């Protein structure tokens, strides 16, 4: 602590003549920036700046909530948006605070590092003239070995010792400053680790339905949304494919989940083909990517048979609505329905879509809107059929979970009926076409990521902890011994032999120093004979 506060005084005073104003200003600002007071203020600003990040919805975490906020507060939201309040942790002002703090940090530790290395190389200083002024002070009879014996005791206790004539100086507790510097340096390493991750990392989320037909390969196009760091190109994504073979879940009677496990087959040029299991808390670790299990649900398998007798199957995942019973909502769209096989002629107003609510455990009686248990004890699919122009370009599969409501409003799509289907049941629509609920597939929600900064992050966090403990629990202190001839005039029983004057100085806040000093004295006297020791007690009391 003293290191920092002393520093301004150790800087040579600027020459009186022709002071370079700009240089002085720069030097002063730098000194200001690297002062402990500035660090404190910046730390505070950082804490305060983080608060809106927890109060307001954040785009990176819950974009839907941000959109909702725009709907709820149409007047405030745009203004907040302009100042980056929905992306606090990437905002200019948040970044400015931590970058300033880290600049301050670098400016603060560099000179301390230099000083510390110098201190490590130099020898403990000479004993002060008037040792009685030190916080700890005593006099005892010299041990037989003199300074050499004292130095030996100190060295055994891992003090750094310097013997100068009949004086011994010793110092201990460099660990404190070493730890402190290690701690502050690893803060910088943590920041670099985070930066590496965001520059060179990538991530994407993806629903994966069970079955070979639904296998997913790691390309940009296969993600609904993917985030690539600024230094990552789509071509850099490691090539592998995943197929969901099995998904198991166990639930308590209350419906609370207890256990999940997904079994997948991995293969691809960058990965050997193999089967692997993973679950919540234990992700699938591939060479250059990790696969995390975030959620799961059901994909109802629906077969539609059109007027020409052509059947098509949809097994789109139905998204869970968030209740315990895994009530799920989704859409089965058949944009290619009712294409005349003879002419290949599309009938754009004859496309079919079914919106539905899937209930793994339907209640005994209507309303059939809420599932009572997450496993399929009484599965039922509540379908609403629509016919017309879906507003999709024909032939686009997947990634549609909702019917385009504009088409419904403008009458281009019409509702043609509603029905609750059990597994295996068939429903014949007004135009004689049929829809069948064949069963369900499981699907899992995956997050697939690569973070090249994570190792650095982990290591620097470890170093940070070690350094912090050294900094907090290390104690810097010095002791000095001076062998002096005993004063014969005192008439002491040890007259003629010599005495040792001892002083101790804790250099940091250290309430236990007195105890340590006492023990050290006892150890030094351990070599002296008991009589002399008793004498020493009386001697010291004077």
């Amino acid at each position, binding site marked *: *602590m*003293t290191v*920092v*506060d002393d520093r301004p005084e150790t800087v040579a005073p600027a020459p009186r003549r022709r002071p370079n104003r700009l240089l002085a200003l720069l030097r002063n600002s730098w000194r200001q920036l690297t002062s*402990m*007071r500035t*660090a*404190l203020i910046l*730390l*505070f600003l*950082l*804490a305060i700046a*983080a*608060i809106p990040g*927890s*109060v307001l919805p954040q785009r*990176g*975490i819950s974009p839907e909530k941000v959109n909702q906020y725009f709907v709820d507060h149409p007047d405030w939201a745009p203004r907040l948006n302009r100042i980056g309040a929905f992306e*606090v*942790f990437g905002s200019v002002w948040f970044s400015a605070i931590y970058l300033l703090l880290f600049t301050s940090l670098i400016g603060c530790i560099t000179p301390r590092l230099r000083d510390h290395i110098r201190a490590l190389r130099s020898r403990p200083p000479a004993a002060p003239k008037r040792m009685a002024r030190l916080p*700890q*002070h*005593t006099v005892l009879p010299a041990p037989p070995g003199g300074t050499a014996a004292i130095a030996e005791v100190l060295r055994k206790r891992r003090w750094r010792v310097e013997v100068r004539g009949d004086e011994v100086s010793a110092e201990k507790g460099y660990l404190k400053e070493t730890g402190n510097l290690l701690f502050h340096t690893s803060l910088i390493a943590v920041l670099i680790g*985070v930066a590496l991750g965001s520059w060179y990392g990538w*991530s994407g989320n993806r629903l994966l339905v069970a079955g070979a037909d639904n296998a997913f390969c790691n390309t940009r196009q296969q993600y609904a949304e993917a985030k690539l760091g600024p230094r990552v190109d789509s071509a850099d994504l490691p090539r592998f494919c995943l197929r969901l073979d099995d998904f198991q879940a166990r639930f*308590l009677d209350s419906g*609370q989940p*207890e*256990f999940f496990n997904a079994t997948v087959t991995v293969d691809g040029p960058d990965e050997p083909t193999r089967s692997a299991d993973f*679950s*919540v*808390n234990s*992700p699938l670790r591939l060479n250059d990517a990790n696969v995390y299990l*975030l959620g799961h649900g059901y994909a109802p398998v629906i077969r539609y048979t059109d007027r020409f007798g052509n059947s098509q199957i949809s097994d789109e995942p139905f998204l869970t609505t968030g209740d315990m019973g895994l009530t799920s909502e989704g859409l089965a769209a058949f944009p290619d329905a009712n294409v005349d096989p003879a002419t290949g002629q599309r009938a754009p107003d004859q496309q079919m879509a079914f919106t539905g609510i899937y209930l793994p455990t339907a209640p005994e009686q209507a309303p059939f809107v809420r599932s009572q248990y997450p496993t399929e004890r009484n599965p039922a699919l509540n379908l609403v059929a629509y016919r017309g122009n879906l507003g999709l370009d024909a032939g686009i599969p997947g990634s549609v979970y909702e019917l385009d409501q504009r088409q419904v409003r403008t009458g281009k799509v019409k509702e043609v009926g509603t029905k609750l289907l059990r597994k295996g049941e068939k429903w014949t629509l007004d135009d004689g076409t049929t829809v069948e609920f064949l069963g369900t597939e499981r699907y899992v929600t995956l*997050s697939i*990521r690569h*973070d090249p900064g*994570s190792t650095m*992050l*982990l290591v620097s*966090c470890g170093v*940070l*902890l070690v350094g*912090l403990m050294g900094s*907090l*629990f290390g104690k810097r202190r010095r002791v000095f011994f001076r062998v002096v001839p005993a004063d014969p005039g005192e008439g002491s029983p040890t007259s003629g032999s010599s005495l040792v004057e001892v002083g101790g100085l804790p250099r940091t*806040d250290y*309430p236990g120093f*007195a*105890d340590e*000093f*006492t023990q050290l*004295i*006892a150890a030094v*006297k351990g070599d002296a004979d008991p009589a002399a*020791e008793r004498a*020493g*007690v009386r001697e*010291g*009391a004077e």
Partner: protein
Amino acid sequence: MSALSDNLVTFAILAYLVAMIGHAVEYALGNARTRVATAAPVRELVGAGGGVLPTPPAPVPSSPPADRSARQARLAGLVGVGATAVAAALHLAALVTRGLAADRMPWGNMYEFVLTVTFIGVAAWLVVLWKRPSLRKLGLFLTLVMVLLVATAELVLYVPIVPLVPALNSYWFVIHVSTIVFASGIFLFGVVPAVGFLMRSGYEQGKRSFPYTLAKRLPGAAGLERLTFTLHAFAFPIFTFAVIAGAIWAEAAWGRPWGWDPKETWAFISWVVYAGYLHARATPSVKRNVATWIAVLGFLTVLMNLFGVNIFFTGLHSYGGLD
């Protein structure tokens, strides 16, 4: 077993109340001069003794003619300490039975969490009191905090026992949560001498208005300040470790070590504020009062994380158990 645990909590609250009353009576009777011999001049002992270790100063009872109220006050204080120990034992028993009933560590929701944090706080207090009996008068403030928090847990946060959701079912749960709970408990205890110091130092500077007069019989300001620092310096690395462990776990469970979820954000805020406290205390130009206020602020952010985040925000950490 679960009902037994609930009853034990109620009894513990009652025992804390008794302890608080004991300490309050001691305060009211006042004038007890038990602190006389506690500040033995250690330095002289060493200077004189060489090999003699300073013995822990024993409280010297007041001289015979001293009024009876001093003895009564001391008795009331000891009753307070005894009742605190009983309460802590009941508190521990409540946690153990809750854990046995749930067949897991009792840290699955906000109720259990607060119950454990408060237990750590009181246990740490008893340990410190064992070593430094002269701090006894802090007991009034400590038991007040305990009564408030444990009663809040029982009345507001109570939820029946449920098993853990799979996301929590990991050995990281034990590592991360136990250290968070432990550090929070020490921070909780630490705020008591911090507030005590703020009042006492005002009192020692001659302030005689309301909150300062409460500090009339507290131990000296310097000792309180040192205790505040010791507790925070002890808890801070544990808290740091807990946050790092949380990040490691979050990487495994959610795919990212840090995502600025509200809980994570507030843990970050607490960490930064406590780092600010340590800095402020290490800077001679910052007054000790200011530094101590920062420690108090730090505890408010811990409380915010404990209660506020579960109640006001939703995030991945929303396992508080309240709807």
